């Protein structure tokens, strides 16, 4: 690929071969219909084709590829969760991430900057030790570090003892990473299309047709599309799409806002998170500081930006990095997150025999894109819940087998 780039460069013209697939005419029926053309949906389609040879697949997207939460998240990838179930799942995701640029032949800018979760209280220290221990047991690099190590890992942090909530220690996750979020959707889209998957943008699902406990078709603004199986991967509208299939998903939508600063020269290497101060921050390759905080305190479907978000976020940022007062905030946006009661996703089989869900991704969906895609594809192909997905089954809410990942969520809720 670098050679081709050089070749085109010397010729001063670039290939007209599309990187993303041409828009196609929708067929009347597909074996599998994937509702949602974000990272997860496209990854499901890719792994269906790649791992299971199921190529008669359509991905249906109401807007543009990766235009939902794939475009709106802050691109942080980590596996230092609290429950063994969560850690095992995200560890597999990180293994897939590491090789993904080569697999998809697109530079996802996967960058293991290291991830620091700051502790400002005794209680936070206890949770971090707990997380570090669980992580180590499951083979995830994670350690509890004191102030001396912190001063080396992130010398920019204000480690003064005379601030309101002094930093006491941190959970350090050396393999914590970031990736170019848009490119993930593009990479999966291309790889899926190259394997025969149809990707239908600007196609909105308006209804799901059922017959005898099975889904037989989806209604769209382009007409009815028949299906042998269907899966939904529609973060932000999971409840509505689930309802079309007659499912009541235990999810509430909360907006999560984020913003970036004007680009500046490198000032920050690791990803820094403070749960007590409701803030996370890292610096992109372009020099923008990428920042987020707590979800909005009330359920809402809107993606509006608010002023109080910026006010509280910046005061927290300045508490950690007082030298940034002259940095300027450039762009702000929001996504709608699907929150579940136990801060863990809902994946796999549903009461409908041939309908699958990939939902409840709250504020942690991007990092799971590869593993969710791979394992959901397995689930759809085999009709069985893979072991690694068993803890995330929808049924857990009936039986109350909740997971309790709240302690490991990086943002406040």
């Amino acid at each position: 690929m670098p050679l081709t780039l050089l070749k085109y460069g010397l010729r001063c013209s670039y290939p007209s071969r599309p990187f993303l697939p041409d828009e196609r005419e929708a067929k009347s029926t597909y074996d599998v219909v994937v509702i949602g053309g974000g990272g997860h949906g496209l990854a499901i389609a890719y792994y269906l084709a790649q791992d299971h040879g199921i190529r008669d697949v359509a991905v249906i997207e109401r807007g543009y590829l990766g235009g939902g939460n794939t475009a709106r998240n802050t691109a942080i990838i980590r596996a230092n969760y609290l429950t063994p179930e969560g850690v095992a799942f995200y560890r597999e995701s990180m293994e897939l991430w590491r090789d993904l640029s080569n697999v998809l032949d697109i530079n996802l800018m996967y960058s293991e900057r290291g991830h620091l979760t700051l502790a400002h209280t005794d209680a936070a220290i206890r949770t971090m030790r707990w997380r570090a221990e669980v992580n180590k047991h499951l083979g995830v690099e994670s350690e509890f570090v004191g102030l001396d190590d912190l001063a080396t890992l992130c010398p920019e942090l204000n480690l003064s003892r005379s601030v309101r909530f002094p930093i006491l220690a941190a959970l350090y996750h050396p393999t914590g990473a970031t990736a170019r979020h848009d490119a993930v959707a593009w990479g999966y889209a291309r790889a899926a299309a190259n394997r025969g998957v149809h990707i239908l943008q600007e196609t909105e699902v308006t209804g799901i047709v059922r017959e005898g406990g099975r889904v037989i078709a989806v209604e769209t603004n382009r007409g009815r599309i028949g299906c042998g199986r269907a899966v939904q991967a529609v973060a932000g509208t999971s409840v509505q799409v689930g309802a079309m299939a007659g499912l009541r998903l235990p999810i509430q939508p909360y907006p999560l806002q984020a913003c970036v600063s004007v680009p500046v020269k490198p000032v920050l290497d690791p990803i820094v998170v403070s749960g007590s101060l409701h803030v996370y921050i890292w610096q992109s390759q372009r020099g923008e500081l990428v920042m987020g905080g707590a979800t909005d305190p009330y359920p809402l479907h809107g993606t509006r930006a608010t002023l109080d978000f910026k006010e509280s976020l910046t005061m927290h940022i300045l508490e950690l990095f007082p030298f940034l007062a002259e940095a300027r905030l450039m762009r702000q946006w929001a996504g709608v997150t699907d929150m579940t009661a136990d801060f863990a996703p809902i994946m796999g089989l549903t009461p409908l025999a041939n309908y699958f869900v990939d939902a409840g991704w709250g504020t942690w969906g991007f990092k799971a894109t590869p593993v969710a895609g791979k394992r959901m594809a397995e689930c759809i192909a085999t009709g069985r819940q893979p072991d690694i997905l068993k803890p995330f089954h929808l049924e857990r809410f009936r039986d109350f087998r909740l997971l309790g990942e709240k302690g490991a969520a990086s943002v406040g809720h």
Partner: protein
Amino acid sequence: MSQIYRLAEGGRIDRSRTLTFSFNKRKYQGHPGDTLASALLANGVSVVGRSFKYHRPRGIVAAGVEEPNALVQLGTGARTQPNLPATMIELFDGLSAESVNCWPNVDYDVGSITQWFSPIMPAGFYYKTFMWPARYWMAYERVIRRAAGLGKAPTQPDPDIYDKMHTHCDVLVVGGGPAGLAAALAAGRAGARVILVDQQPELGGQLLAERAVVNDEPALDWTNSAARELAGMDDVRMLSRTTAFGYYEHNYVALLERRQTGPSNTANGSRERLWKVRAKQVVLATGAIERPLVFADNDRPGVMLAGAVRQYVNRYGVTPGPRIAVFTNNDDAYRTVLDLADSGVRIAAVVDVRTDPVGELPEKTIARGIEVIKGSAVVRAKGGWRLDTAEVMALDGSAETVTGSVRRIPCDVLAVSGGWNPAIHLFSQSGGKARFLDDTACFVPGASVQAERSAGACNGAFALADCLAEGLAAGASAASAAGFTRKSRRKKPAADTVGEAALRPFWVVPAVGGKRRGKHFLDPHNDVSVADVELAQREGYESSELTKRYTTLGMGTDQGKTGNIHGLAIMAGMRGVDIPTVGTTTFRPPYTPVTFGAFAGRDIGGLYDPVRVTPMHRWHVNAGAKFEDVGQWKRPWYFPQEGETMREAVDRECLATRNAIGILDASTLGKIDIQGPDASELLNRVYTNAWKQLAVGRCRYGLMCTEDGMLFDDGVTTRLGENHYMMSTTSGNAARVLAWIEEWLQTEWPELKVYANSVTESWATAAISGPLARTLLGELTDIDLANDAFPHMSFQEAHVAGFPARIFRVSFTGETSFEINVPASHGLALWTALMDAGEPYGITPFGTETMHVLRAEKGFIIAGQETDGTVTPIDLGMDWAVSKKKDFIGKRSLNRADCVRADRKQLVGLLTENPKDVLPEGAQIVSELKDRPPMEMIGHVTSSYHSANLGHSIALALIKGGRERTGETVHVPLVGGTLTATITDPVFFDPEGARLRG
């Protein structure tokens, strides 16, 4: 070389004073009224920056916020500001600025070698390269990060102050140009409370750049009289140097006022002020932003916007160069031509893409003998460091190709105009959708979503007469909608109408021979060219959003204020659809970048978050206590004596409490006063145990669950009277519990007659605990403290040391304890009295750490330490506090399959094999030890301490099926080795409770 391009006269600068400033370490001069940009142009500085990706030399393009190139680093040290547009920096004496993104300097930038590689750096090239081998990306990234990023952030905390103002008004007018002034006048005359904001140092907006006439006098005279009239109105506030940057829900508009224009000085108060305005009605009069025409190497220094050139001449008395050519598709650029000619600047030629420009202004131009090259286009800007030649070719009829021979026009500046884009950013932020006007080829506001209206150029009404008329109408209707309809007999401003011919929508000059040479920049800030957008489209990034993300078009600090629409036009052309079908960008706040400092305001450092302290805090400080943050509270953690380690201090405090008497400041415990006939019913519903039979004067320990049956909070509640309870909560959860009760009362149980009220800060609480506690209290009160007169879990009102007090006999230490509550103002006096009277008994103040050890010895839980939102009361072995009969929040969940599993994690005690080992809290427990992970984890340590009283370490843990495993040996593998422990009952001390009942 001093101000060689300063015109002999004109402009709104103060020529009587000269300011000295430095740019890239060279000294220059300018005048008050200049911007850094106008002063640099006056001094003939053409290259002011380097571009983001290719490091190409760049000059000043614009005169306002839309400037994409001239970004500078202003000042040095702690106050340095990166990436400010030179066009928005008011000149002051001693100003010092430098170009960003170049090394060693702007003229010889090593980074510019990247432009030789530009053929292999098309849009999205990052995605296609730097990935062999994949693990090297991190190394590439380091280099890329250094090359990107523009300016430098300061390294020191900012010494400046930022503050905030909250205000309301009837009519907020954004923009102090002709439309905004007219609107403010109309609204003010109608009697409304008006706020008029403008981002410039003086009112007038576009009039500052024009030689226009209003009411038969120079427009700026009218501006001045309008400003005077507004200043004379009681209820009108005018804010200059103030940018409305965010339009939020319910007409909530955020403004940023720049209050110090010279060097910052904290002695002058705040540097910036964030205004938070809630307006009944908003009038948007935000004007328009000129857009360029795109041709080869259109980023060459010297290529500028025509309106900006006019502004430099008319407002600053500067010509950007001695020989100026003009390239346009509309009549407005002819104003620039005529004004330049009037100022004696040589016009090289006017190139107009229209074959027959028929408006008044082109006719005047031609009549003055200035050459107008019709039906033609500039195909390329040539020159070295700056423009020296514009290459012009004829357009064919459809404007799809250029034909004929190349005509070379020598010029230093090329003033370009592709028409104007209404500044609809705030309208878009308000939630409105734009609509496209075909004749002026621009987006204008569609239907209003909030109580808002647009007037003037931002509404697509570009002519001055229309701006004034729309402004007056909008101001009057906004005032009327806000309830103000007073009629005014004042003269309405009016201007003559100039006969302007239509513009010809035109975006990108066709390539010579169909093959594009050189770079055609759409977004000079991010170095995005026409070829990049075309490539993105060919590669399948069809949606305008995808193209934007792939190419980074419009994502720079200027947020694409000049070139975004060209991108849409190119996409529309390639796809054979019209521009509105391709779409428009949704503008999000902020309109221009805003400092973190302004958003944070004063809520930093010492004012970051309130510190809550108890009435006894001063005593603790004097006693040398170490403090712990518990929520917002500062609680004494332990009281070390001289030379003591924490462990020694805690051991001493623990022993003293068990053997004599300890005293704890428990004022931070949440206290909720609950009153009403349904008070018992409320408690019965929120607590897991039964409350209806509790006698007046008795206390009961209760557990609260969330709906999912998981423990949420615990505490002792006392029945003070028939319908009156005092609930206590954990310190950290006090507000949450009250909010929880309120939520249930207001949303689910509105029929209950009961009120809950926080009284945490009304009472100070001193808890005395230990075998001598009763003796001490007996000395300070005259009530009967005998065990049967004042039993465990009961309450009495009495005087203690002369203060009216509520005494609760409850215990969290396992010793006989009295929690003495007095009105907060007596707290310190009570504490001091207890300390004085207790001295003979060896009274020992203890902090939270000792409290934790003592309660752990007793196996008492702490909500939030033994629980994490997944633990039920049954898991904790507290079935005795869970009613089987009555209903309560969480009851149904406790019967769910998963909540009755036998192998749930249950609370147990752990004793280490070596009594000296203290297990780390959070450590994982395994039953079967292997050489290395993974091992099956069966639980974790929640609390762990050295117990001085017991002489060994103790720990509490949650272990799967733990109660059944009592007596089993488990392992705790740690980095430094494995510890072994035995599972025990969680109560380590006085399991019968003889001491606390005694």
